[in-house]
C-alpha cells in the first residue's frame, strides 16, 4: 500500500513572471537549467511509468480482450462499463468497500488522535514512544495480514482463546470476516493517521492552550474549543489520505479471506477479472471505474469539505 505525500506548494513569491525573467541572473538561470536537468529524467520516467499505463488501461477498457485469446479481441466501446455498472456484484462490492472504508477510517481517526496526543504530550522516552507507535505502519501489509489471519484462525490462533470463543470460525461468516479485515487494517494504519495528526497538533501554539487554561477551560473544553478547531486542516488531510488508501484495499482481503464470504472489494474485482480471468479489457474497465471513484473522493474532500492541502505544511496564509 502506498501513501501519497502532498506535493510541495508553490513558492510564496507571486511576483509577475515577466519581471522575474528580466531580473534573472546568470546564477539563477544556471540553477534553473540544472533543476530541469536533474528533475528531467525523473519526470520522463514518471510519465513513462504512470502516464502510459493509465492511457493504455483506458484504451484497453474499450475492448473485449482475453489474454489467452488475442485473436478474439473485439472493440466494444463502452460495453464493458455498461456491463459492470449494471452488474449487482459491482454494487455489492462497492458497498463492502465503502463499509470497510468508513469503519476503518472513523476508528483510525479516534485512535490516531489519542495516539497523537500521547506522542505530543509525552515527557519521557518521546523518541522510543513514537518509534513503538509507528512500528505497525512499517510492517508490510501482506505480513501483517498473515499475522492477523493466524491470530484469528480457529485452529492455531490466540484470539478465540483470549475471548473464550472456542472453535468459532471468524472467516466463516461475512460480518465476522469483514470485522477481522477491519481490525487488521486499523492496527496497520492507525500510526499513519496519528503521524499526520501529530503534525497538526504541533502547529497549535502553546499560547492558545495556556490562554484557555487561564480562562478556566477544562481539558475536554480545551480539546473541543481550541485543539480541534485549530487542527481542522490537518484532520481533513489525514482523512483524505486514509480514505483514498482505504478505498483501494486489496492485500489484507486477499490474504485473510481471499474474497470468500462476500468480503471482496472493488480492487479485488479488478484483480479477479484482470489477473485470474485474464479478461484484460473488462479488468481495465473496473480499474478505470475504481480510479474515477478515488478521484471523486479526492474532489469531494477538496471542494465540499474545503480541505486545504497547503495547510498541512504549516504554510498559513
Amino acid at each position, binding site marked *: 500500500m502506498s501513501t501519497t505525500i502532498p506535493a510541495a506548494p508553490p513558492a510564496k513569491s507571486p511576483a509577475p513572471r515577466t519581471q522575474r525573467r528580466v531580473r534573472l541572473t546568470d*546564477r539563477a538561470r*544556471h540553477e534553473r537549467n*540544472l533543476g530541469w*536537468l*536533474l528533475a528531467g*529524467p525523473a519526470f520522463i*520516467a514518471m510519465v513513462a511509468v504512470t502516464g502510459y499505463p493509465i492511457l493504455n488501461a483506458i484504451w484497453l477498457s474499450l475492448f*473485449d480482450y*482475453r*489474454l*489467452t*485469446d*488475442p485473436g*478474439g479481441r473485439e472493440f466494444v466501446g463502452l460495453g464493458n462499463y455498461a*456491463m*459492470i455498472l449494471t*452488474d449487482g*456484484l*459491482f454494487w455489492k462490492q462497492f458497498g463492502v468497500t465503502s463499509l470497510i472504508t468508513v469503519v476503518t477510517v472513523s476508528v483510525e481517526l479516534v485512535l490516531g488522535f489519542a495516539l497523537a496526543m500521547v506522542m505530543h504530550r509525552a515527557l519521557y522516552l518521546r523518541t522510543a514512544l513514537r518509534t513503538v507507535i509507528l512500528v505497525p505502519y512499517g510492517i508490510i501489509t501482506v505480513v501483517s495480514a498473515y499475522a492477523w489471519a493466524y491470530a484469528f484462525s*480457529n*485452529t492455531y490462533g490466540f484470539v478465540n482463546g483470549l475471548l473464550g470463543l472456542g*472453535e468459532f*470460525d471468524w*472467516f*466463516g461468516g461475512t460480518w465476522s470476516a469483514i470485522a477481522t479485515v477491519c481490525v487488521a487494517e486499523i492496527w496497520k494504519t492507525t500510526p499513519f493517521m496519528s503521524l499526520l495528526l501529530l503534525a497538526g497538533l504541533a502547529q497549535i501554539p502553546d499560547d492558545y492552550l495556556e490562554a484557555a487554561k487561564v480562562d478556566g477551560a477544562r481539558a475536554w473544553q480545551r480539546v473541543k474549543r481550541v485543539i480541534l478547531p485549530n487542527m481542522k486542516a490537518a484532520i481533513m488531510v489525514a482523512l483524505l489520505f486514509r480514505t483514498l488508501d482505504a478505498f483501494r484495499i486489496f492485500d489484507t482481503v486477499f490474504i485473510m479471506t*481471499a*474474497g*470468500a*464470504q462476500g468480503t471482496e472489494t472493488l480492487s479485488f*474485482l479488478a484483480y*479477479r*477479472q484482470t*489477473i*485470474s*480471468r*485474464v*479478461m484484460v479489457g*473488462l479488468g481495465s474497465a*473496473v480499474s478505470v471505474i475504481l480510479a474515477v471513484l478515488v478521484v471523486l473522493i479526492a474532489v469531494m474532500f477538496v471542494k465540499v469539505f474545503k480541505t486545504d492541502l497547503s495547510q498541512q505544511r504549516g504554510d498559513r496564509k
Partner: protein
Amino acid sequence: MFPRQRSRRWSAGSALVLFASVLGGCGGDDGGSTTLTYYIADAAQEDVATRCSAESGGAYSFNIQRLPNNAAGGREQLLRRLAAEDRSMDIVSVDPPFMAEFANAGFLRPFTEQERQQFSAGVLEGPLKQSTFRDTLYSAPLYGNTQLLWYRKSVLAEAGVDPSAGPVTWDQLIQGASRAGVTLAAQGRRNESMMVWVNALVSSAGGSILQPGAEGLPADQVRGGLDSPAGAEAARIMHDLAVSPAAPAGFSTAGEEDSRASFQAADGGFMVNWPYVWAAFDAAIEEGTLPATFKDDVGWAAYPRVTAGTESASPSGGLGLSISSFSRRQDLAVEAIRCLAAERSQKDFMRTAGNPAALASVFDDPEIREMFPMADQIRTGLDAATPRPVSPYYGDVTGAIQTAFHPPDSLSPRTTPREANGLLEDVLSNQRLI
C-alpha cells in the same frame, strides 16, 4: 563558482548515465547457454533436477524458479509470464486443469509424435488423459494424483460404516460420522480444492460441469451441465455435510491441510484427501505432534460414491512438464524432460514428496509398495480419476463454480444447480462478473 557548477553538471550527467545503464540492464541475452530455466511447483522437483543435471555430463543445467504453492497462484504467474512471451522460461510445471488454457493460447510447445510415444508409454490413463488437448500431448506427466477416503479404524464400529468391507456413499459417511460424534473432513474452502470436490461429486453422479464437446467451442457457446440431477446431488451432499455435526469447525474455509488437521484431531473420523497425507503423517509423527502408533489406526478406501450402485469418479490432479513456446532451447528442454519425468525420477519424487507417480511401473516397485501400502488403491483411483473440465476458458469455469458453490451450507439442491449453471454461462459469454 564555475568549477562548482561544472561539478554539478558532471553529477547530473553521471546520474543520466546511471539511469540509462539501469534501464539497459533489464534486457540481456544468454543465447547459446546450456542453462534451462525450470519452474517448479514442488520443492522435491529440485532434488530430481540436481541429479539430472549432474547425470547430463554438462549437457544442461537448471536455473530453478519456484512457483507459488497454491494452484491458482501458480497458474496466474505462468499465465502472466507466458502471455508476455517471456523468453527466459524453458520448462514449466503445469497443473493439468490449466494446461488446455495455455495450450489453446499457443503458449506451450506441442510434443512431436515421437516424443508423445515416449512420454506416454506406460503412463496411467488418468494422468495421460489430462496431458493431452485436442489429441496433442502438451505435458509430460510427472505425477498423477487422486483422492482417497481415509478413515480411523477405531471409529468404524460406532459409526456403523466400514469402507474396508466395500464402497460407501457420502450419505452413509455423513450419517455414520454424525452418529459416532466424529468429523468427515472435505475441502469447503473457496479455491481450487473446492472445485476438485464439486467436479468429483458431479462426475460421480453421472454428470459433467460442462456439456460434452465444449473443448473446441468459443467461450460464449459453451454450455454448462450443472442444471441437472447430478448438479442437484452435488449441491445436496455439500449442503448436508456442511450443516451436519460431522462438518469440522471452519468447514467453509478448510483446504487440504485443514482437513488433515481435523482428521488428526481427537474427534477425527473420516477425510477425503490426496495421498500426500500418508507422508505428512510420518512427518508429524517424527515431529512428535502425533503418537507413533497413529498410522496403525488409519485405513483407506476408494473415494466415496454418490449413489450406492454407481462407481465413484475420484478426483484427478497431478503435474505435467511442458515447454514454453517462447523458449530458445526447446530441444534441450525435451532432452531434460526425458530425465526429469523418467521412471527413476518419478519414483524419487513419490518417495520424497508423497505424490503418486504417473507411470504404472513405479507402483510395482517393492520399495514404493512398502512405503505406500495403499499403492494399489491409488493406482486404481488414478485409472478411474475424472479430470476437471478440459477447457481453454478454465479460469472462468473454476471461478464461476467457486462463486456459485460457496459457502457450502448455503447451497440448495433446488436452486443452486440452476443458479450455478446460469452464472457459469453468463461469465463465459462475458455478461456477468465474478
